[in-house]
């Protein structure tokens, strides 16, 4: 009896680990979109997955697992928002639901992995003009601060901030054209 229980648990955990790996990047993308601090993102990720494990028997198998995970994450985000509003941005149920829909839209795109589904982002970055591409490269891929970018490029802080925002705006348009992100209809 004990051995049967142990084998069942091992199998359940193995299956759950597969689900975690399949949804890790998606969930981290969701949490990084609302939380500023990397350690908070990690905490929320751990709590979401832990609650998913504990409530696994309540999961409705007819619905996408990622959608269910984001529902759990949304509740945790809202709970944290009540305590520390400065850590999160534009957090309310409506916007979290919209964010979840955008991620569901990405999930349904062709591709085996999350990276495959958003491959267009690399092309969009490559299509930016030199100044904007450089700003994105330094800010995200070399993790430089705005001040460091300004010093390196011998440009003002304000100019760098505007370039980054303009670059993000052009990337957003590009991702919409490639149907990675859906257009806002309402």
């Amino acid at each position, binding site marked *: 009896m004990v051995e049967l229980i142990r084998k069942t648990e091992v199998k359940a955990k193995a299956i759950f680990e597969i689900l975690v790996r399949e949804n890790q990047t998606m969930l981290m993308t969701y949490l990084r*979109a609302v939380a500023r601090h990397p350690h908070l993102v990690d905490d929320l*990720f751990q709590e979401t997955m832990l609650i998913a494990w504990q409530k696994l028997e309540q999961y409705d198998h007819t619905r996408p697992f990622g959608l269910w995970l984001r529902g759990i994450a949304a509740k945790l985000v809202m709970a944290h928002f009540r305590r520390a509003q400065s850590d999160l941005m534009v957090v309310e149920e409506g916007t979290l639901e919209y964010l979840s829909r955008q991620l569901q839209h990405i999930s349904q795109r062709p591709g085996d992995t999350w990276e495959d589904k958003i491959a267009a982002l690399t092309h969009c970055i490559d299509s930016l003009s030199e100044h904007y591409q450089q700003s994105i490269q330094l800010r995200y891929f070399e993790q430089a601060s705005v001040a460091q970018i300004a010093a390196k490029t011998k440009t003002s802080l304000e100019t760098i901030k505007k370039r980054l925002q303009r670059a993000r705006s052009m990337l*957003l348009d590009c991702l919409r054209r490639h149907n990675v992100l859906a257009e806002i209809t309402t």
Partner: protein
Amino acid sequence: MTTENNGSNEDVIDALTSRWFDSETDDTETGRSAEAVSRSLDSKQRKQVVDFQLVHSLLIQLSDRNKNTKEKQIQQLMERIANETNAHRAGIVKLSRFLRPFMRYGAAALLILAFLFLLKLTPSPTATAAMAQVIAAFDQAGDRTYSILIEGNRRDRRTPRHERFDPPPPGQKSSTHPPAFRKDDRRDRRPKPFDRSPERGREPGERAVLDGSTLYLRGSDQFVLFRPTPSGRILINGCDGQTRWMIRPEKPVIVSSHPNAFPIPLPKELADILSLNLKETLIHIGKHYQVKYMNETGESEHRNGSRIYLDAERVSRDFNGPQNIEIWSEAETGLLLRIEFAGIHVEDYSSPVRMIIELTNQTPLAENWFTRQTHHSPVAEVYELSGEQLIEDSVKKQH
């Protein structure tokens, strides 16, 4: 004009997102100011901001090529799951060894199945102990301030969110009465026909709402509830442990010693379960819900120590309450931190909402905070209602 507005809106969004994405992460002032600006945006603008947040997140994800970090994250999670499972299994192993001699008999196998079935139905000892601790904590608890909020999609957006009424500094007698009872109020103060129903006759737009209310508690039997109306007026329900009272704008103060006097209008799912001293609410949960102990996690912001998270599912079919309730409490003291009711139908909301009661403050209140005299003018008319009058007026008609 439209172009100017669009340009202006884009500037606001650009400034907001730039401030959020490109400032230092430990800059809490940026966080607070960004949150304040985001609240001024309309629905479409917020979605635009969310799209920028998503682009920002996708860029971080694309640039994060460190597989070790991802692997470590998964390993940490699976270790936590394994630790939880081992603790649960230890209990089952002890039980199984005890029953091994009986497993040779077919009837014994049925006995085991029945026992496990009952084990699943009854609350775990940990959940029972946690609930008992939370209920017991009410009697010893000091002053607590809870906010009541409703999360959901409002049907009518013309009515703006109101401001809560802030209590006076601790230890000081209230010198600021709710707006309807200021001493220099020059409105007609001649006696009006006595209105026996506390909230009878109010237009729907002037009814006090729970969203944005503030609930003050002392011990387990004293409470004060401030409920705002859309126009910004305040209705106050209170109890000093013996006498219940209610203060309404431009109407006499009403008091009663009846224990159920002046019930507030509640959504149907909460009518049987929600009581203003909250202790009875928890007792109802213990009786009619299956409570599961989820985890002990995180830091309690009110004291050092971790939080307990309990999940309750309604099992009593003849009890009219929400299907699901979540409870957070301090692990060490049982202090109720937060309680969430799911699937509540509230007027003016297009779909079921969540009602959240959350502890916001434990600052000691004025000694007389729970007496009615603290909250109304000394010259206000006061009527005392008997139990029979209350049964006729308060129970039959709520609005």
